[in-house]
Every structure is written in structure tokens, then in C-alpha cells.
């Protein structure tokens, strides 16, 4: 597992479930450090975990990148999960609750979308899938 943090970013190759625990812990620390509430932090780490599980289930491996975001005085986190797996034949169908082709592994994309503020998916058959999510700090 490679784990570099240029400018506070986290970049990790996920090839087995044992890679998951370490990245969960570093992203949890980063989110709390940025000022996210415990609830938001649990949402972020859970979404990250499900994104990694999808890569493991469908592509066998993939890469997770976690970056800080800044827009004006707003701060956020960007998580990208990129794999070179078979791709998703019908992305619209995959966004429906309860749809799964891996025998119930992972809770699917709609759940991840509900946990985060922004959700984007790009998938190409035989090329792979990239899921990008954002979570923004709310001012309190």
C-alpha cells in the first residue's frame, strides 16, 4: 500500500480489505482536523469504505484519492475512487436503490450519494469506473 500525503492529500492503492482500515483511519483524522462534525466524519468515512468495497468487488483493485477543497471561504473534501475494472453497463440502473450485480456486496451507489453533498460517476465498459464525491463543511 502506498500512502503519500502531498499537501495533506491521501492517495492509496486498494488491493485488499486490509488496505481499507489504514485509509479509513487517516481520512477520519483528516476530516476531524478540517473541522467536520463527528456525524459528517462518519458519513465521509462510511462513503469512502463503500467506494473502496465497490472497487474490490467489481474490479479487484483500484485507487482512492482524498483531497482538500477550498471554494472562497468554504472548505471541503473530495474523494475519488478510480478503477480499471469492467465498467458499469447501465449506470442509470446502478443508481437505483436495491440494484446490485455483486450479490449484495456493497450498499450501492445511491447510499453513497445520500451520504455526500456531491456525487459524480463516469464509467466506460472494459475501461473502468471513476466515482467522485464531495463533502462541504457547513458553517455553524
Amino acid at each position, binding site marked *: 500500500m502506498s500512502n503519500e500525503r502531498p499537501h495533506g492529500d491521501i492517495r492509496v492503492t486498494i488491493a485488499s480489505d486490509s488496505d481499507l*482500515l489504514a485509509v479509513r483511519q487517516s481520512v477520519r483524522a483528516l476530516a476531524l482536523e478540517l473541522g467536520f462534525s463527528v456525524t459528517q466524519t462518519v458519513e465521509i468515512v462510511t462513503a469512502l469504505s463503500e467506494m473502496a468495497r465497490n472497487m474490490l468487488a467489481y474490479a479487484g483493485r483500484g485507487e482512492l484519492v482524498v483531497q482538500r477543497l477550498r471554494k472562497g471561504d468554504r472548505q471541503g473534501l473530495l474523494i475519488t475512487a478510480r478503477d480499471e475494472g469492467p465498467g458499469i453497463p447501465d449506470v442509470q440502473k446502478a443508481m437505483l436503490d436495491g440494484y446490485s450485480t455483486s450479490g449484495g456486496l456493497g450498499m*450501492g451507489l445511491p447510499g453513497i450519494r445520500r451520504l455526500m453533498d456531491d456525487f459524480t460517476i463516469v464509467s466506460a465498459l472494459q475501461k473502468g469506473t471513476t466515482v467522485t464525491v464531495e463533502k462541504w463543511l457547513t458553517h455553524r
Partner: protein
Amino acid sequence: MEVPILKQGNYLIASIQSALSDSDLAQLRDALVERVGRLRSRGVIIDLTALDILDSFATRTLRDTAHMIRLRGAETVIVGMQPEVAFTMVQLGLSLPDIATALDLEEGLIYLGRKTRPREVPRARGQTGEQ
């Protein structure tokens, strides 16, 4: 990191002390299912207070654990789920159907006290009236 399992009378108490890897969780499942028989326990408490998240794998493993323990003749109660973890599970669409939960260890013990009877020690062969 291995989860310590304490024997407390007829019960087993597994207190998760930190974030767990998938294999730690699977190991906990196997250890509980085995010990329920070996120690003739009637009830199991799994304390999640220190668990960081419950994702789809962790939820499924807990569900499997409780179902396996029931098949071995004992009851399981899950205690200590943090509010943030419960909130996130519901948003993600995860649930623990047919699995008892309680607020904390104390409530879990009260639940098991109501649900379980001590196992009777099987009598040695020959002592029972064989007709």
C-alpha cells in the same frame, strides 16, 4: 486487533475496543460461534461503543454472527451503537433485522436476563431413567 471476549456467568461479552479490519470482524464471529458451544453460554453481548463505522461488510458480518449464535441456541444483543453510526447506517440503507439491540452494556444484560435461561447441565449417561 483481536477483540477480547469475556465470560460473565452464562454470557459472553465482546467489547470492540477500536476500528476493526474485515478479518478482525470475521475472527470475532468465528470465536463467538465456537465459544458459545464450548462455554455453554446462553447469551452474547457485542459492544460496539468504540467502533468507528458500520459499513455494509461490518453490518452483514454482525448479522451473520447473531444468526449463527441463534442457531447454536444462544441469544445475541448488540449494544453501544453511537448515534452518528446509527444515523449513517440508516442513510446508507443498512439495517439489522431480527437482531436485538440495546443502548449499553447494562441494558444488554437486562435484555439477556429476560430472554435466556441457564443451560441445564446434561446428566451423565445412566443417571437418566432409561426405560
